């Protein structure tokens, strides 16, 4: 290998360019001349720095353990000035990468600005870029360059850079060890990282891992190996890195890509140290643990248990640290664990001696730039110079170069070393960086420390990956698997711990931090899809972790025991960050509001008034078991907690109460009040008592009735003192009396009883008087009726008339009189038609008289019916009726067939007006209408006893009724007049 060989290799794409070109011809990234110094073959030098390192010179655990642990775990203890300083150097890194090439960095900034407009960055990144262009430009530049490189990497199968060759052996090993468990990496995980960019990220993450590893080793020594195998994968916690955080890492790699590698021997894991010792024939360190039976090829690769010690010691050596191992093992798939185990072998080759650098910076309390200025100005302190000398002594490239000569190295590591020798990269770069440190007197430790913190900070923001082009997704399988192995390392970093280390965040990230945390809790922490990561799941749910084949059995058993005994949560309760407290609650019970943090923004007591009023008020929801409610009815009666019953207490809010306070105008309020008033009135109306079914007693009717009764009783009892004269009879009544009076003796008279019993009182006076008049004429009386009650009334009136006429008559005399002079033909069924039949054939119509049915005597054999064949055989027809219709029927049906024989009628006052025309026309020969004519007929015939009093009662009562009618007419007339006036 040519010494002093300068290769103008692009730090981004790794391709060589012309020496005088400042920009990569492939990816247009700012170029930096790398001096590929030959790896020194002097092992003594390597031994010196390694021995110094192990002896604790400069990085002695006993001397610096406290400071290192503070810097590593509690970055918040750093003063703000240091955080700002960190951001400053990070900004410088982002601006140009190499400070001795300001033009290139300026160009890079310009291009990054341009590229930022081309690629869609996450919102937070864009917003931050607007706030802090200095810090975001380099990120954009890196993204752009990475995208270009990824395209080239996907198009070119022959990956000639050292990173591809570095990747390849590890992949082969993985395939060899875990061939069955090897799985295709997730597309999303692939999308997070690019190809070339991922290499840098991987290196950076490994460097941070190694920085922690160095601290862990120091603390582990301090604790006298209390937890030798408890946290072997603490570096995996850095796997939460994404594209965004990779930007800073890439810049860091650009700045000192191989300087960390030169320092890695200071923090090399124990197994690697053992490997180095075996290669260089150096005595292994005393902390090498028990040698487990491993495959042959792993004899030198897995020297002891120290390889599984946690790379970073937590804040305190709490028992929860043991759970890290469990969680990380569970979190990683099998292939990833195997890959990590293999990648862990190469971690020392890529990681930097960040712990040492950070110690230097920590001791100095200054950042790199300040230190550089002090060095240049000659004010650099003696302690710092000691640290630089120690760094100088830590010549890892020499160590690795010697190790390449050893036979214990695996093939892939040999290949890796051969490639490094052939191309002078990357190990040659370590010397270059070292030399640069000597020149510029930089403290690499500062970079390392800041880098690790930065990676941890950026881990939390990995939830918003940048859109990945198809070319980026088309990486080779080996690249993806290797990258994923590193992702597993980074993802295993507890996020809460990362967030707590806010002091080490650059300015732009510090300003971004609260938003980032909030965004992460809102958008990404609920673990979209409802799938919890394995480390969040209960242990019973998680799959049984798979262990590498080379892991000893007792370690596996110990791991299982720890997994069973310890809680799976990666943090202790006291260590949980604020945002993770919400997430770490029982996830099933966490509401979306809790996950989104809305309960912190708006507490229930801060609900707006309108929202409170709209909130439905329900009774406390008690279970039926608490209420001790049993089903009362149905087939489920007696059972508890079955169906909702009427006992369920539900309160429904009133609609008005939920109306809320709206913005209404005064008019609208007035309208609402009117409506409310109306509704209240309607409610009052429902309370009104319904009218009782019993009608209100109308005293007017009985009062009028009593007045009328008194008007009748007084004349009946006291007599008619006002008018003692008999009532005047009408001409028709007088004609009727004359018609009867003019009958010959023993004439046959047809008497038709066609009135209802109700009218007997009105018609009885004239009827009795007329019958008695006929009795006196010894007339033969034939009774007939078209009304069913007529025959009975005829018998009754006959008996009363006989009794009134001849009260001294015996019963026998009466019967004889009746048998001789009276014939009751009975009821003529069929109304008008029966009269027509009777007129045409009296025998046929009245074949069976009333007595024939009762006494069995043939009617037409009676003496009263002798010589009667037709209607005109009757000397007189007397019709006693209450109805004008019946009277008219008799006139229409019978009167024309009487051959001039008279027909008289005794009718009620109701029928009189309708029958008077027939009287006027001569169709009716006499009409005795109403009680007045009855009283007159009775008086004219010399019959009756109460006619005077009855006539007086009728007049008095008629007067009272007339007064009533007039009073009612006046009253209702006035009422109608007033109502009409009101209407008008």
């Amino acid at each position: 290998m040519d010494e002093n060989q300068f290769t103008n290799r692009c730090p981004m794409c790794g391709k060589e360019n012309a020496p005088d070109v400042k920009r990569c011809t492939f990816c247009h990234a700012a170029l930096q001349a790398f001096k590929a110094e030959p790896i020194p073959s002097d092992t003594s030098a390597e031994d010196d720095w390694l021995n110094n390192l192990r002896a604790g010179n400069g990085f002695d655990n006993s001397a610096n353990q406290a400071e290192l642990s503070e810097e590593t775990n509690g970055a918040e203890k750093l003063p703000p000035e240091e955080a700002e300083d960190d951001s400053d150097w990070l900004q410088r890194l982002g601006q140009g990468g190499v400070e001795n090439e300001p033009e290139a960095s300026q160009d890079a900034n310009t291009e990054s600005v341009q590229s930022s407009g081309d690629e869609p960055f996450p919102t937070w990144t864009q917003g931050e870029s607007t706030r802090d262009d200095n810090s975001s430009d380099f990120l954009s530049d890196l993204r752009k360059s990475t995208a270009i490189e990824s395209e080239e990497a996907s198009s070119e199968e022959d990956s000639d850079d050292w990173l591809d060759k570095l990747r390849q052996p590890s992949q082969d090993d993985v395939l060899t060890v875990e061939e069955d468990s090897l799985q295709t990496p997730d597309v999303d995980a692939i999308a997070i990282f690019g190809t070339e960019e991922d290499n840098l990220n991987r290196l950076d993450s490994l460097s941070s891992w190694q920085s922690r590893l160095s601290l862990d080793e120091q603390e582990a020594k301090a604790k006298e190996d209390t937890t030798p195998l408890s946290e072997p994968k603490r570096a995996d916690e850095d796997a939460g890195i994404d594209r965004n955080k990779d930007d800073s890492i890439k810049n860091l790699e650009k700045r000192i890509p191989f300087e960390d590698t030169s320092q890695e021997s200071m923090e090399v894991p124990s197994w690697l140290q053992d490997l180095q010792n075996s290669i260089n024939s150096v005595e292994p360190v005393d902390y090498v643990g028990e040698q487990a039976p491993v495959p042959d090829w792993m004899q030198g690769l897995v020297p002891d248990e120290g390889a599984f010690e946690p790379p970073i010691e937590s804040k305190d050596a709490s028992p929860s640290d043991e759970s890290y191992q469990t969680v990380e093992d569970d979190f990683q798939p099998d292939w990833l664990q195997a890959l990590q185990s293999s990648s862990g072998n190469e971690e020392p080759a890529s990681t930097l001696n960040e712990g040492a650098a950070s110690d230097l910076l920590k001791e100095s309390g200054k950042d790199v730039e300040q230190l550089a200025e002090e060095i240049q100005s000659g004010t650099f302190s003696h302690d710092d110079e000691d640290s630089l000398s120690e760094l100088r002594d830590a010549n890892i490239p020499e160590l690795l170069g010697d190790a390449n000569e050893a036979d214990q190295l695996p093939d892939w590591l040999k290949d890796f070393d051969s490639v490094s020798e052939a191309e002078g990269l990357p190990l040659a770069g370590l010397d270059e960086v070292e030399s640069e440190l000597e020149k510029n007197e930089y403290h690499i430790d500062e970079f390392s420390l800041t880098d690790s913190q930065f990676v941890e900070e950026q881990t939390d923001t990995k939830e918003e990956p940048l859109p990945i082009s198809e070319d980026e997704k088309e990486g080779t399988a080996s690249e993806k698997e290797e990258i994923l192995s590193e992702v597993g390392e980074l993802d295993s970093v507890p996020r809460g711990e990362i967030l707590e280390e806010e002091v080490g965040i650059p300015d732009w990230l510090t300003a971004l931090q609260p938003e980032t945390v909030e965004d992460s809790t809102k958008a990404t922490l609920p673990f979209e899809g409802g799938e919890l990561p394995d480390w969040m799941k209960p242990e019973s749910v998680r799959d049984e972790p798979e262990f590498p084949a080379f892991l000893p059995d007792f370690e596996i058993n110990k791991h299982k025991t720890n997994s069973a005994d310890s809680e799976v949560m990666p943090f202790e309760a006291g260590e949980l960050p604020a945002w993770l407290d919400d997430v770490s609650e029982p996830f099933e019970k966490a509401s979306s509001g809790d996950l989104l943090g809305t309960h912190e923004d708006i507490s229930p007591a801060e609900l707006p008034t309108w929202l409170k009023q709209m909130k439905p008020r329900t009774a406390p929801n008690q279970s039926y078991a608490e209420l001790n409610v049993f089903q009362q009815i149905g087939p489920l009666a007696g059972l508890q907690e079955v169906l909702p019953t009427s006992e369920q207490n539900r309160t429904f809010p009133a609609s008005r109460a939920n109306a809320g306070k709206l913005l209404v105008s005064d008019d609208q309020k007035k309208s609402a009040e009117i409506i409310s008033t109306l509704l209240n009135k309607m409610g009052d109306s429902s309370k009104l008592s319904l009218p009782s079914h019993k009608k209100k007693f109308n005293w007017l009717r009985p009062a009028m009735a009593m007045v009328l009764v008194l008007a009748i009783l007084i004349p009946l009892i006291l007599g008619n003192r006002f008018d003692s004269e008999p009532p005047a009879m009408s001409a028709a009544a007088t004609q009727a009396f004359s018609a009867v009076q003019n009958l010959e003796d023993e004439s046959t008279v047809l008497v038709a009883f066609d009135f209802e019993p109700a009218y007997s009182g009105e018609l009885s006076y004239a009827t009795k008087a007329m019958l008695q008049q006929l009795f006196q004429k010894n007339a033969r009386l034939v009774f007939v009726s078209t009304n069913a009650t007529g025959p009975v009334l005829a018998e009754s009136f006959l008996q009363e008339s006989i009794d009134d006429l001849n009260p001294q008559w015996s019963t026998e005399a009466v019967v004889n009189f009746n048998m001789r002079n009276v014939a009751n033909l009975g009821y003529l069924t069929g109304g008008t038609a029966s009269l027509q039949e009777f007129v045409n054939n009296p025998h046929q119509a009245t074949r069976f008289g009333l007595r024939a049915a009762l006494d069995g005597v043939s009617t037409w054999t009676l003496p009263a019916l002798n010589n009667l064949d037709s209607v005109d055989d009757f000397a007189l027809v007397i019709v006693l009726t209450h109805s004008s219709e019946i009277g008219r029927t008799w006139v229409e049906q019978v009167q024309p067939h009487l051959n001039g024989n008279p027909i008289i009628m005794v009718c009620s006052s109701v029928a009189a007006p309708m029958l008077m025309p027939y009287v006027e026309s001569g169709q009716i020969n006499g009409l005795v209408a109403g009680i007045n004519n009855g009283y007159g007929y009775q008086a004219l015939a010399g019959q009756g006893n109460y006619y005077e009093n009855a006539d007086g009662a009728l007049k008095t009562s008629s007067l009272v009724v007339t007064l009533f009618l007039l009073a009612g007419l006046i009253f209702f007339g006035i009422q109608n007049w007033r109502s009409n006036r009101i209407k008008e």
Partner: protein
Amino acid sequence: MAGLMEIFWTITAFLLTLMVLSYLIGDNPLFRAAVYIFVGVVAGYVTVLVIYQVIQPRIIWPLIYGTPNERMYALVPAFLSVLLLFKLSNPLRRLGNVSMAYIVGAGAAIVIGGAIYGTIVGQGSAVISTLQFQAGSGYIGRVAESILIFLGTISSLAYFHFGTRSTLQNNSRRPEFVEVFSKVGQAFVAITLGAVFAGVLLASLSALIDRLIVIIQMLGGWG
């Protein structure tokens, strides 16, 4: 014995009268009881009367004891009566229409014949007879009365005439002279109905007086 029966029936009549008059204070059980008694007694009486006065002598006896002619003559009303019983059954009620048609048809024919010959001819003849120009007193009065009767008759008929002719204006109004006569006839009808109402009122008062006389006689007899 007869005296006791008379006293019993007198007391019964008195109590039933008081029960009916109790309606002055409103509907009450006494009034309803009296009404139900009257209705029941009348229904029973009519049933017995119809059986003994109509069905037995007019249908049963002729069919049993009658001559063949009488039997044949009795079959017609018997058959129509049986058909009339089908009116009680919905499916067979149409069979009763034959009897109903006979009853309505015969009754209408009898009524129309009697109305023509008894009322129209009789009343027309009577009005014409009043217009006979006979010398004597009251001639002008009778002529005026005849004119009034004629006017009343024509106007009353016009009042109940509702026939109209369709016009272009679709104004369904009777002819003008009919409208005039209808107004006159309305007055005649109103006077007639008033007279009828007065007769009803007098008939009611007569019935009340008759019942109060019965009560007074009853109380006077006890006193």
